[in-house]
């Protein structure tokens, strides 16, 4: 890939780039060094701070908390897919009396912050006598929000398909349900898979909001451990461990999105849909030169979102 921004560098540009590279390294090292120095000065690297992590029990607890995060994520993601599917079909309906309210619902669900929705379910509804556990408050709020987002994604996928697909379906005598079920939906979902998985990463991240409404997930446990004076209040180590677990989980999901996207681009059955996959590369001379010099940066694109 050659960039719009710069040509293949000549000798002077190469030297300039090296100097700038060196400056970048110095700045980043300075920032990192300062952070580590603050960690050191405030005694974050002392054995006492990490003492808690020598116990198997603590790691077991971390594992259980991670499982509770995943339990919320699993139910929420499946629910959001189903709801997204239903709402998408509703939004694509030919009847205005179905389409209008469904459109309204998806727009409102997307405009309300997920946290506010969780708070409504957990603290607001008991006022009118509906009580639920924090787990269900987290899951239902995530389903409502992400389902609405996925509905938009699936609808966009269906509308970006060539018109001829639908027409051909009707031409061979399928009814509306058949055209949807057999022709439009499978293609739309296949084309939008990377975006759908990217949205699932968002769902996984948002389970952490459960911490605020006292659902005992990973972050909640990190806070609990961090405020344990007997173990030396290892707040920062606990946050670092929790962060590492989250990043590992999300990266694993993002990686799935990336491989799916790559396979889709190669798959002969996939339709070229704008917004899914990369734009076709029009090779220019500069790109050829770059390819020959192997200067091209390869940055894996995770799904858009």
């Amino acid at each position, binding site marked *: 890939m050659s960039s*719009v921004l710069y040509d293949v560098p000549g000798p002077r540009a190469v030297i300039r780039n090296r100097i700038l590279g060196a400056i970048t390294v110095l700045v980043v090292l300075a920032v990192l060094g300062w952070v580590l120095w603050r960690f050191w000065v405030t005694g974050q690297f002392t054995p006492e701070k990490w003492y808690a992590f020598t116990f198997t029990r603590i790691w077991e607890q971390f594992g259980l908390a991670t499982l509770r995060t995943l339990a919320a994520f699993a139910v929420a993601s499946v629910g959001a897919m189903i709801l997204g599917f239903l709402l998408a079909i509703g939004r694509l309906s030919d009847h205005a009396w179905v389409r209008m309210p469904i459109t309204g619902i998806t727009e409102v669900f997307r405009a309300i*912050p997920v946290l506010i929705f969780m708070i409504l379910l957990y603290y607001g509804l008991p006022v009118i006598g509906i009580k639920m556990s924090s787990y269900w408050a987290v899951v239902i709020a995530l389903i409502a929000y992400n389902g609405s987002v996925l509905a938009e994604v699936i609808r966009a996928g269906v509308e970006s398909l060539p018109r001829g697909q639908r027409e051909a379906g009707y031409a061979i005598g399928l009814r509306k349900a058949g055209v949807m079920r057999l022709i439009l939906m499978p293609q739309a979902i296949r084309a939008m898979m990377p975006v759908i998985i990217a949205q699932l990463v968002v769902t996984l991240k948002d389970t952490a909001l459960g911490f605020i409404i006292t659902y005992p997930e990973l972050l909640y446990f990190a806070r609990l451990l961090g405020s344990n004076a007997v173990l030396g209040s290892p707040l920062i180590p606990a946050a670092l461990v929790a962060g590492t677990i989250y*990043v590992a989980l999300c990266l694993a999901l993002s990686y799935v999105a990336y491989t799916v996207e790559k396979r889709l681009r190669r798959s002969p059955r996939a339709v070229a849909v704008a917004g899914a996959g990369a734009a076709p590369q029009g090779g220019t001379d500069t790109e050829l030169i770059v390819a020959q010099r192997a200067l091209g940066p390869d940055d894996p694109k995770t799904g858009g979102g």
Partner: protein
Amino acid sequence: MNIITDYPDLWRDALVGTLVLFFGGAVIALILGVIVGAMRVSPIPVARAVGTVYVNWIRNTPLTLVMFFFAFCVPLLLPGRANFLVLAVWALGIYTATYVAETIRSGINTVPVGQAEAARALGLTFGQVMSLIVLPQAARSVIPPMMSVFIALLKNTTVAAGFSVVNLGNIRAEMSENGENQLLTIVWVMVFFVVMVLLLAWLQRVLENRWRVAR
């Protein structure tokens, strides 16, 4: 309506808190996002790598955890007393900056390479290629997704409520101490957000129609 008119100060403080978080976070996110976005498209491999690591690392961390770190851990690391509002603004800014950076990068990628090559063929300097050809086109295609980033930022301000920063997200707790109806309070907060988000979405549409790139 009483629930609002009886407590004008509470609601005003909450609204101001939300707006401070929003605009403060937006300013930090824009400055940092432009820097990181520039690093991601620069010809310098090291800068690209640093930008990529930063973006992937923060984007795969929940905002709640970023807030958690800023609210509970940063005060331990820094000398002096910490202001929770300032910390929350920084957390929002640092988190949103990754999305701003990605938006800028994809905006620059929408400009066909041929545009810049044609400009260079005419003998324009780097500065001219940037200011006359590439950035105007990139800016136009960036506007709608950038507005989406800001809509997400507005909704994310509520996360600060979990860390004792006064905003619309935790007015419920204040109200319940006064023995008011929590359900009504939350419904009103929702109405506020729907109105604000619709306002931003309307702005997004207006800008999109005015600045459409003819391609």
